[in-house]
Each structure stands twice: as structure tokens, then as C-alpha cells.
């Protein structure tokens, strides 16, 4: 029996149609995946169901009755809960407090002991494996997500929406999430699982609905489909899933990092004795859970931070203490993670954005006076070379799609032939076409004998692209795997602070091994 049905849901924001006539049927007690690229309308549809948005047209039927939730509170009271991609927890409060917040068991006086007991029962029953009195900020991301799920579960819902739940998890954490989902399913819970990752959707769901450009492409039984079929549905054309890499042609070490340490303003050591090198013609992947020092390492390499100890060499030249513009001049390019806040000036034209790193020098400025014709012609050329659309140099960066914004950054950073490219999450949030283009560009650069540091939180990306993989945990390099040794399980363990051989490491222990 269908617990939830949507009929002809349509929603537009200004001129953009986010959902167009979507019909959905979710069976009770099933795991139903919603698959689609970024911007396909998955989140909008879920927010309409959850009452965060109102649909322009169409109706929602829940347990046989037409409903129109006025907001999350209303949805929860009627039995629909949602776990958001970005956690909505209070870091300074305990697990129990976060879970019961707003739904405290007694009326006026809050009985901490009773509440904790109640929460503990649920935890034990469903093997959530978490301490109810722990403070949320001390928990790992995977455990925090469990708190989010518990929070929804505690509100006694029948339908749970999980929005991109694996985006921040390690492979091991993803596995335990799937165990929890299966357990909830056995208890009769219906789960809507939103994702753009094909493997995950295939392994957890009963049915899959694919959205593309705001419309429903198809709903399929998971057992009757495969990765290639789903990818084609999702993108709307034949997709090449495998990255084709030319065999490696390693050269000399291009970038050498010796014993690098960085202590931040609060006196916390964010990078500890970091040692690695990248050869010319190599993509070095740096994997790790977010916030383990990747940012600080990259900023030390690009001159935004100055390291407290250690050295950085580029082609035998010591560039440790060079500033940002100097390092750029030496040949270090940098694609930052946040393209909208950092990599681009959204309110400025593509002309300014294309020459952000070089407008202060000839030929773009002479005696301090900017040469706009020179800048314009250069931009026009680069826009064509990197296939940016629309190809008008005068439009503002904010008017480009995410993929085209990234292309502008790419044109700026690799359009001038760097020696080393540091790319942080270069394909995050992009559609398949743009991802293909960007990966091709990185591989082209690699084949030209440049060194590339690819920092990514997505293992799939690292495994597809990297020639060697290093794993960072709590500011330390846990180990480096050669291409033949790269495997998901191993990297996952190292991301949790163990070395590649499965033995747990103490802090700073790697260099004694």
C-alpha cells in the first residue's frame, strides 16, 4: 500500500521550474531512493512534502488523506520527519537533550534521568551504539548523523526523509548507516533516501525514482536496473562512467613538503610533521574526513598561512615563506573548495574574474592603470578555450551555472600553465557533464607533466583520479598508498585514524613505524 503519493507537483521559483508535474508513489515499509543530479529538483520536492515550501500545483496524499503541511512541526506531528544534509544540532548539548528538545517527556519540569532512560532504550533497541549523555560536539560526524536520525525517530514518525545522508560519511560510517536503515525498515518505517551516488542507491533501496531537470524520468525496481542504466536516466544521455587515464609517466619530484607543521591562532596544531612529495605527471589524492587539516595544509602550500615549521620546495626551489602572489608566480595554482565565496567575485564580470590573479601585472596593468581591452580579449580567448557558456565576457559571474563558474576558475588557474595545481573538491555539486570536463582538464595537465594535488572528501573522486593516495587524519599523514594498493576499505580505516595495515596509531605515531 502506498503511504505517500504526490500528484502533479509543480513548483517554480521566478522563471526557474524546480518541479514539473511530479507523480510519486512510495510503498509503506520500503526504502525509496530519489536519484538526480544537483539541481534536478530532489530537495525542492522533499521540502514541499515536508511543508517547508508550498507547491504551486498538485496534491500530496499521505495515508490516504490529502495533506498540506504548514511547516516541519506540522509534518512531524502527522508522522513525516526529515534528516537534513546539514545537521541541525546544538553542539554544546548532550545527545539526549538534542533528541528530546521540544518534545520533553514531562510537561513543565524536565526530568533528565527519565529522559536519558527513554532515549537509551531506543538506542539499545535499534543498536544505535551511542552514549546518550555525550556532548554532541565531541561526536564524530557519523555519530552526529545518528543523533539526527534518532531525533526524528523519537518524534514517532512513519516516514523518514534522508537528504544526501552519506555526503559527509566515511565508507565504514556509510555501512553502519545502511544497517540502521535496514533495521528501521524491518520495524515498518518508510524511508525516502535522496542521493546522487549510484552505488549507494543500488545497495540500499527497493525502488528508485530518477529526477532530471525538475521532471520525473522514471521509477524503477532496484533489482531490475544497474549503474549504467541509472546514470543514463539521470543525465539524459549515454554516460561514460569510467575515467580513462593514460598510463603514468612519472618524472622527478616537483613539489616536496618536508616536515610541515602549522599551529593556529588558538594554539592548536592543525598540521603535524607533514611529509610528502608529488612527482611531475602525477595526481596525488589527499583523502580525509572534513576538518582534519586539509584546509590548513592547502593554505600553507598556497601562501595564505605561514607554516610554523618545515619546508616547501617547488622544482628544488625553497618557497616556504613566499606570499600568495609570489607562490602563484612561481607556478602554484589553486582551485578552492568554495568557488562562490572564495574563488570568484559573483558581482563582478567574467573579465575581472578571469584575471583576478594577474590584473596587477603587465599586460593587464601598466603603471597601475588597468588595460581593459587586454583583459577583455584574454577573457574572450579563455572562455572559448574552456567552453564557458554563455560566452559573453561582460556578464557577472553570478549569472553562470555552477559548472560554468568552475570553468572560469579553471581557465584562470590552469589557463596559464602552472607547475603545480592544488584542487580542492573541484567537482563538488556539479553535473555529470561539467565533472567530465573538469576531470579531463586535470588529466590533461597531468599528462603534460605537471603535479596535481587533489583534495577531496569524496572517495569516489579520489579513487577515480589519483595515481597515489595519501590520507590525512587530525593533521597527520596516515600513510600513502600506491595505485595498486588503493582500496576503499583501507582508505576508510585510515580516514578514521588507523594506518594502512589495520593497526591503530597513536598521535604522531606514523613516523615511528
Amino acid at each position: 500500500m502506498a503511504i505517500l503519493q504526490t500528484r502533479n507537483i509543480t513548483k517554480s521559483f521566478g522563471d526557474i521550474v524546480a518541479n514539473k508535474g511530479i507523480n510519486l508513489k512510495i510503498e509503506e515499509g520500503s526504502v525509496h531512493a530519489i536519484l538526480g543530479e544537483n539541481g534536478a529538483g530532489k530537495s525542492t520536492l522533499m521540502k514541499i512534502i515536508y511543508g517547508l515550501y508550498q507547491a504551486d500545483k498538485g496534491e500530496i496524499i499521505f495515508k490516504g488523506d490529502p495533506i498540506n503541511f504548514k511547516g516541519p512541526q506540522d509534518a512531524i506531528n502527522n508522522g513525516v520527519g526529515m534528516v537534513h544534509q546539514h545537521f541541525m544540532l546544538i553542539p554544546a548539548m548532550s545527545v539526549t537533550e538534542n533528541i528530546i528538545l521540544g518534545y520533553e517527556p514531562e510537561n513543565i519540569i524536565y526530568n533528565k534521568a527519565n529522559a536519558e532512560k527513554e532515549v537509551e532504550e531506543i538506542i539499545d533497541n535499534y543498536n544505535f551504539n551511542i552514549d546518550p549523555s555525550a556532548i554532541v560536539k565531541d561526536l564524530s560526524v557519523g555519530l552526529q548523523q545518528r543523533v539526527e536520525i534518532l531525533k526524528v525517530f523519537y518524534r514517532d514518525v512513519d516516514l523518514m526523509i534522508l537528504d544526501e545522508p552519506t555526503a559527509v560519511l566515511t565508507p565504514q560510517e556509510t555501512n553502519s548507516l545502511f544497517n540502521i536503515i535496514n533495521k528501521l525498515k524491518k520495524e515498518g518505517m518508510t524511508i525516502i533516501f535522496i542521493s546522487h551516488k549510484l552505488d549507494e542507491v543500488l545497495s540500499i533501496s527497493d525502488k528508485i525514482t530518477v529526477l532530471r531537470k525538475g521532471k520525473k524520468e522514471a521509477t524503477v525496481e532496484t533489482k531490475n536496473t544497474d549503474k549504467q542504466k541509472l546514470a543514463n536516466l539521470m543525465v539524459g544521455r549515454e554516460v561514460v562512467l569510467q575515467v580513462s587515464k593514460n598510463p603514468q609517466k612519472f618524472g622527478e619530484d616537483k613539489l616536496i613538503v618536508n616536515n610541515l607543521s602549522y599551529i593556529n591562532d588558538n594554539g592548536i596544531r592543525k598540521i603535524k610533521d607533514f611529509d610528502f612529495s608529488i612527482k611531475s605527471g602525477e595526481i596525488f589524492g589527499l583523502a580525509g574526513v572534513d576538518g582534519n587539516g586539509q584546509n590548513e595544509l592547502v593554505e600553507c602550500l598556497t601562501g595564505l598561512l605561514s607554516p610554523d615549521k618545515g619546508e616547501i620546495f617547488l622544482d628544488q626551489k625553497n618557497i616556504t615563506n613566499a606570499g600568495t602572489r609570489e607562490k602563484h608566480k612561481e607556478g602554484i595554482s589553486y582551485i578552492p573548495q568554495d568557488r562562490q565565496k572564495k574563488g570568484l567575485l559573483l558581482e563582478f564580470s567574467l573579465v575581472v574574474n578571469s584575471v583576478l590573479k594577474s590584473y596587477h601585472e603587465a599586460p593587464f596593468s601598466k603603471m597601475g592603470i588597468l588595460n581593459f581591452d587586454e583583459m577583455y580579449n584574454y577573457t574572450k580567448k579563455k572562455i572559448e578555450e574552456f567552453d564557458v557558456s554563455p560566452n559573453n565576457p561582460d556578464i557577472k559571474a553570478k549569472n553562470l551555472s555552477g559548472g560554468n563558474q568552475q570553468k572560469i576558475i579553471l581557465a584562470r588557474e590552469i589557463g596559464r600553465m602552472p607547475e603545480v595545481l592544488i584542487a580542492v573538491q573541484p567537482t563538488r555539486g556539479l553535473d555529470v557533464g561539467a565533472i567530465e570536463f573538469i576531470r579531463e582538464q586535470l588529466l590533461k595537465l597531468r599528462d603534460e607533466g605537471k603535479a596535481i594535488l587533489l583534495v577531496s572528501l569524496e572517495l569516489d573522486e579520489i579513487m577515480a583520479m589519483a595515481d597515489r593516495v595519501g590520507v590525512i587524519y587530525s593533521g597527520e599523514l596516515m600513510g600513502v598508498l600506491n595505485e595498486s594498493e588503493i582500496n576503499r576499505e583501507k582508505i576508510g580505516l585510515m580516514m578514521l585514524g588507523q594506518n594502512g595495515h589495520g593497526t591503530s596509531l597513536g598521535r604522531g605515531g606514523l613516523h615511528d613505524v
Partner: protein
Amino acid sequence: MVMVLLLEEEDFMMFKYKFKTLLVPISSIIIALIIGGFLMLFTGNNPIEVYKVMIFGAVGSIPNLANTLANAIPLILSGVGVAIAFNSGLFNIGAEGQYMIGALVGAWAGYSIQGLPWVIHIPLVLLLSMIAGGLWGGIVPGLAKAFTGAHEVITTMMMSYIAIFLTHFLLRGGPMQASGYVPQSPKIESSSILPILLEKTQLSAGIFIAIIVPIICYFFIYKTKWGLNMRIVGKSIETAEYIGISVPKTIVASLGLSGAFAGLAGAVQVLGIQHRMVDSFSSGYGYTAIVVAMLARNNPIGVIFAALIFAILNTGSQFVQINLGVSAQIADIISGIIIFFIAVEKIIKIVYKYYNRSQTENRGVIS
């Protein structure tokens, strides 16, 4: 043929773009004038009559026009100053104090440096007052902001009060008071006086400075790499750091220039009109300059026009007071309403959007 068409389309887009930037300022002025008109109606005056007299009083005769232009000079110069800081995302609210310091130093250098020919004396006085204004409004708050994070709104305002009370201290029986009982400085040397262009009006050669400065600043902000540095810092400090701009240096430079032009405004006023420093609590120019810069959307050329509008309101309303007995405060009310609508520019954008939509819907019904 195709080229021609394309060009025309681009021109049209450019026009549309320009229109959109001007939409909020112009609508604000019109709405403010209408509300001001209702106010006059309620107080028993004929608004059309009042506005007619106001316009005549401001621009209706050569002497009136000259006085309006004279009134615009300090607004233009200090408005340009505020606009420069705005371009770097900094809110220099202390232009009034920088203006006072500029006037103070201008008067002092005007009467105490003697025996110089005017070609040296005038530029020297202006330069000194710019340095003083720059130090006062820019360098001190700028350094505080860059290195301790102290907010420039607070520091520039506090520095402004210090400047105002320093003026009282120096002029009321202090070292700068001229002999006699009036709290004012001695008269400046004739070699430092900016000549009056039209007799029996206040229009001095300062008007040339007020035309040249915005043009130079426009060029600086939009056509040089230093100006671009500032505008990038104004839009995103994160991006500025990412591309290697020194954010502290840019902040100090930007507030410094901002204060320098506010200081210049004070000196030009002393050299052109007052010819001495007179003790008063507030010139008002430094505060109006903030509104002028906002109305001009921080464009130095736009500042000229925005300043003229406020100058017209000012001189015009004084004329109205003398001739019709309607209080000149009406000008303050109208400028207050303009400020309000500029500050909540969203209102105008929302109304405009709603109007656009209803237009398209109506058209849809007809066709």
C-alpha cells in the same frame, strides 16, 4: 548587418542596466518629494507653489545658482571621501570630524604660514589638511580595524567627536582664538584665499577642485589596479586574501583617502567662504556626505549630481523660508525620507517587480 543588430542589442542592455542602477535613487527622490508635498498640504501650503519657489530659489537666477553650486562643493568633496570607503566595504561615518580637522588645519596653515605666493600657499594648505583628515579619519581607525578588528563605524564616529570638541577647545579661549571675544580663528592670509568667481555670491574657485576630484577618484577606483584591489576587498575579504591582496593595507589606504577628501572639503570651505575657522558644533556637511555617497551608489561622478540635489534642497528651502514663511526644515524632512528609501531600497525593488509582473499578466489576459 548582424553586427549592427548585435551592437544595438548590447546598447539596449547597457541602457537597461544603467536605468536599473538609477532606479532606486531617482524613485527615492520622487517619493520623498511627493510625501513632502503632502506634508505641506496638511500644513496649509500649496506644494506646487512651494516647489516652484524652491526651484527658483536654487537655480532660478545666476546668483542663486552660484550659491547652490557653492553649497554643493563641500558635499561633493566629503561625499567622494565617503564613497571611496564604501567601495572597500567600509562605513566612514566620521566624515564630519575629518571635515572639522581639515578646516582647522586649513585655517591654521592659512594664517600662520606667511609670505608665500598663492600658487604655493594654496596647494600647501590643501595638502596639509588632506594629510590631517587622512590621519584622523583613515589611518587611526584604519589601523585599529586592520590589526585589532575595531569596527570603523565606532572608531570613525568617536574620532569625529574628538575632532569636534578639539575645535571648541582650540577656539573658545584656546590657542587658535583670534583676539577679541568671538570664538573664531584669525583671518587667513590673502595668499591662501580661493578667489570668488561671482561677486556677491559664495561661489569660489573651489568649484574647480570639486569637479576635478571626483573625476580623478572615478579614474582611480574604476581604472587602476589599486581601485580594483579596494573594490575586491569591499566585495569579499576571503577572495581578496585568496588572490593575495593585503587586506590590512587596503583598509588603511581606503579609510585614509576617505578622510583626506573629507579634510579637503573642510579646507576648501575655509579658504573659499569662511576665510577663518568659526566655532560651531556641526557643519552638517560630513553627515550629509554619507547620504550623498549612498544616493550616488558610491560612484564619484554620481556624487556630483547627488550633492547638487541636496544643495538645491538646501538653498531652495532657505529661499522658501524667506519668501513664503514655510520653515526650511522641510528640506531636512525631504532628505530624511530620501535616506529612508535609499536605506530600504528593497521596497522600491519589490514594488517595481510587482508592477512588472502585473503588467505582464495584464498583457497576457488581453492577448
